[in-house]
């Protein structure tokens, strides 16, 4: 809880300037309200008590007009300033959160439900904003404005001033008493919202699976139950919140009534001038107004704190340790790699690699084989910088990988994953993965090399077809080939592949193998191989078991090796 509050205070400096401006403008508006009350009270006194004609009060009435205008201008700019304060914080938080997630990397993110993260980055940030745009300015004004009113009231009527001073502290007291309970409930409500959001996105993504098992209608009841739970919880929080504003309004109203009664009887007994009485009565509501505004802003604060907790959780996702500044890789266009006794232990205690040592020469083609869980993916994830070694060291062209700037290093890699992600963008951008100028010729060549031309031809708008999350009705194999086209377009000295040839028919598999041959020429290639062709064409096969190298040698050395036979699929039978 305190951690969250510290976190929110930490964001304050970004907003300070605008917040200060907003408070100054609002305070000036408050002073004008006092002047306005003075003018109105004197006009009403002159007419109702002294029997003045319109001409006599006209000067003070006309003075009101510029005052009204000035107040409108002050209110407008005060609101603008506090909006800017909130927006600046929101922008900063989203940028910092995304930066953190990028540094945490895809392996750490895989453990987080996407829907929850999306809620944290959208709804929760939106709920934090009012803390800066509404709560903080109101909190500063809550002492300033009543004080100014009090200073104006004392010379007119000290008794009313006493009533105001005595009743004022009761309001925040009650607010805190009721607000404390609401705050705890509010935390729970935010957790619920996040859970509901995560659940919904999960259900929608899995709708096909649910339908296969005739569970999609059953799930409707679950959606209804969660929505109903959410309603009940939200209402419980709101009812408390409304109760605290009821208490607030009640005290403010009763206090004004007490002030009015005291003034009324002293007027009746002739102990007080009407001007003083009317002036104080006009100001009395203004004395409580900031406190009442704080009441509503206080709920904004509670919601913001609840939401901030979701956001701080996001910053808790561990980030692989990397030095801040790295050198750039001496770029001879060739990459050699050595793993020196590398170990990887994940946050949950699972062992990814254990004493893994391997030297890959520049231009060499390595096929990694081994049972699932042997650590093949971890080897690729290490090279991609998605996980950091917990022991040992990796060297690239003699330089420790840790010392190389990650972005620079990744420019040397073309990566084909097992499940290439297709982005909500057109096909050309999905292949080129750049927002710079597209190299049309390079796009054509890459598509040709990946045997993806027929896929492009079959799409309604060719390269300009916008792909959805799972492609445009593309099959797994077609998505693989688009991923392959990506790798060809990348044209990098190190190629990392995960089962790159899975899903292709024999005909295109041979062509793709030939294409990979071409791609591999003069490049270093490390492939996780599940297929004989990939392994057979390699310069060296590395057999992995339990996070380490069990055997290594040329493909011929493994002929008839029983350890390998079961791991590699054979050619498609006729």
């Amino acid at each position: 809880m305190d951690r969250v509050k510290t976190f929110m205070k930490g964001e304050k400096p970004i907003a300070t300037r605008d917040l200060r401006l907003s408070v100054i403008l609002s305070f000036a508006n408050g002073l004008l309200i006092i002047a306005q009350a003075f003018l109105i009270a004197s006009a009403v006194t002159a007419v109702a008590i002294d029997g003045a004609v319109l001409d006599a009060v006209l000067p003070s009435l006309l003075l009101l007009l510029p005052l009204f205008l000035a107040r409108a201008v002050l209110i407008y700019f005060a609101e603008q300033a506090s909006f800017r304060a909130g927006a600046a914080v929101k922008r900063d938080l989203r940028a910092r959160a995304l930066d953190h997630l990028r540094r945490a990397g895809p392996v750490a993110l895989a453990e987080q439900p996407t829907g929850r993260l999306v809620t944290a980055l959208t709804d929760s940030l939106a709920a934090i904003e009012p803390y800066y745009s509404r709560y903080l300015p109101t909190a500063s004004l809550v002492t300033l404005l009543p004080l100014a009113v009090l200073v104006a009231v004392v010379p007119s009527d000290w008794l009313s001033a006493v009533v105001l001073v005595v009743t004022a502290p009761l309001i925040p007291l009650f607010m805190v008493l009721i607000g404390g309970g609401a705050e705890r409930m509010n935390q729970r409500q935010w957790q619920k919202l996040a859970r509901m959001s995560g659940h919904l996105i999960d259900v929608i993504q899995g709708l096909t699976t649910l339908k296969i098992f005739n569970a999609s209608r059953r799930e409707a009841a679950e959606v209804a139950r969660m929505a109903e739970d959410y309603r009940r919880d939200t209402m419980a929080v709101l009812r408390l919140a409304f109760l605290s504003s009821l208490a607030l309004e009640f005290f403010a109203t009763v206090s004004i009534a007490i002030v009015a009664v005291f003034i009324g009887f002293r007027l009746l007994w002739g102990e007080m001038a009407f001007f003083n009485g009317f002036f104080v009565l006009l100001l009395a509501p203004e004395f409580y107004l900031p406190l009442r505004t704080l009441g509503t802003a206080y709920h904004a604060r509670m919601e913001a704190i609840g939401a901030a907790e979701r956001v701080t959780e996001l910053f808790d996702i561990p980030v692989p340790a990397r030095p801040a500044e790295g050198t750039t890789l001496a770029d001879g266009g060739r990459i050699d790699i050595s793993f020196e006794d590398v170990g990887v232990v994940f946050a949950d205690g699972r062992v990814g690699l254990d004493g893994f040592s391997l030297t890959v020469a520049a231009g060499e083609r390595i096929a990694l084989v081994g049972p699932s869980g042997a650590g093949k993916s971890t080897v690729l994830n290490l090279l991609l910088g998605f996980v950091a070694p917990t022991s040992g060291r990796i060297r690239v062209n003699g330089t420790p990988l840790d010392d190389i700037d990650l972005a620079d290093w990744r420019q040397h890699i073309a990566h084909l994953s097992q499940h290439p992600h297709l982005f909500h963008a057109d096909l050309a951008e999905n292949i080129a993965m750049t927002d710079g100028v597209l190299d049309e010729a390079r796009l054509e060549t890459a598509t040709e090399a990946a045997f993806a031309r027929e896929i492009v031809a079959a799409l309604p708008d060719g390269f300009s077809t916008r792909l959805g999350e799972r492609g445009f009705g593309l099959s797994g194999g077609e998505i693989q080939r688009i991923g392959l086209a990506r790798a060809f377009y990348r044209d990098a000295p190190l190629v990392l592949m995960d089962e790159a040839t899975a899903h292709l028919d024999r005909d295109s598999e041979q062509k793709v193998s030939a294409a990979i041959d071409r791609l591999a020429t003069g490049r270093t290639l490390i492939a996780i191989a599940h297929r004989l062709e990939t392994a057979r064409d390699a310069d060296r096969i590395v057999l992995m078991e339990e996070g380490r190298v069990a055997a290594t040698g040329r493909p011929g050395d493994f002929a008839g090796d029983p350890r390998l036979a079961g791991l590699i699929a054979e050619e498609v039978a006729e």
Partner: protein
Amino acid sequence: MSDLLRLLKLFRPYWLWMAGSIALSLASVLANVGLMAVSGWFITAMALAGLAGVSMNYFTPAALIRAFAIVRTVGRYGERVISHEATFRLLAELRTWFYRRIEPLAPAGLAKAHSGDVHARLSSDIDRLELVFLRFFAPVTVAALASLVVVAVLFAWHPQIAASQAVLLALAGIALPVLVAKAGGAPSERLTHQGAEMTTKLVDMLDGLGTLQAHGFDAAHAARIEALTCGMIAEETRLSRLSGLSTAGVGLATNMALFAAIALAVPAVRSGALAPADLAMVALLAMASFEAIGPLPLAAQSLGGTLASARRIFALADGAPPVAVPARPAPLPLNAADAALLSFRGVGLTYPGAARPALCDIDLDLMPGTRTGLLGASGSGKSSLVNLALRFWPPETGRISLSGTDVADLDPEDVRRQISAVSQHAHLFTASIAENLRVAAPDAPLGKLEEACRIAQVHDFIAAQPDGYDTLVGANGLKLSGGEARRIAVARALLKEAPILLLDEPGEGLDRATETAMLEALFDATGERAVLYITHRPVALERMHALLLMERSRIVDRRAAPQMG
């Protein structure tokens, strides 16, 4: 406008709640006006009585002030509770309604809709609809009624003041909101679309981070999100300027009402048309009556965005399901032991917008106790067969029948009741392994789950986890390796007791040894089920009774396999 009407129609079951909340809100607004007016009158009258040295009846006004104060505070509380209760009831109902509407569309009808986008519609768009009652319908009704009452009361005192009040109320309550709504309509509609785009971009970023980073594109993608954030803030700034203008505008109108009331009342007091004590009353009444107008500009401004949300929700929910449910579904036929459970006759399919057909002239029979292998390269149309069999998509030509009855005459749910399947994109939910398995069989005891997992060769892995079958699966099952997730999906399909089993690349992501072991155990366990085994890899084909080879959307070769398993 028709969208607004349709929305209001959805509110109909809750009209009593809404009428109650409007009545309470009106009472509380009027009580405040009364409180101010009576207080102003009260102290002026007391002062005049004091000056004149006469006594006056202060019990009645004091009682009125007390009554108004109570109605004001309690009424406000009751109104808030009731209006929010009504709104949240509606929202809960709306979410379920929306889910029920899109459920028949999946997967074909949703193929083009990004799941992040559907999610945005389901949660934030629906959330935004709360504004229709709370921020639009209720404030507008209350403001209109309260203004009528105030102007009528003022009219009894002084017609001219009533007229000036009516003009200013109309300026602040009608002209200003309409202007603000006109100016704010475009930005808030843009903001709604940007919000959906933001969700889509974030989902792309989070789910595709590996691909983005490997290609050094994550910084650029983050920069796009940053640019979108700035774009959204720019729109929000426009809206905030408008809301600042309207706050200032309503404030100005309030003050002008006060000014006009005093300026008009002074001569009336002089001429004796108005009692001196009434001057303070009329002035304060004029000012207080603007309380109800305050929320109107904002209400009008939010309407554009709210209607955009409503339109997006309706657009998706109104999509026609790709497979129609017959008005009177035929009863599920019984199957004779020697007849085909599922048969395709001359089935063809071309997806809308696709250049070439996905399936051509397919003939296929799945018999009880028989395993059919379907071999073919990716893109040859194998997975479309599964989509047709599961009634996710209707055949364009030809006929698909279940135990002799055309599937078009059957309820798609009934058809799926007869089929279990491992599809290409089998989804694992963010839940425990056991919960994921029980999607197929909600009441299956743990023993059954273990049995299925043993066959799928994944029991040992699960048992080795600290939490066993209660181990939580990460987002999209990504905490598991591809092979582990696949094997759990296979175990899940086995748990559904259906006479037909469709396996679309069940061994994907598995190493050869595990794949072979799994398929051997799987085919030992299929018994009397009719099995269609789709693969591009020649594993365990000797366990098939018949083999089909598919190429370019057609079955090009069929042969009976020699071995019987």
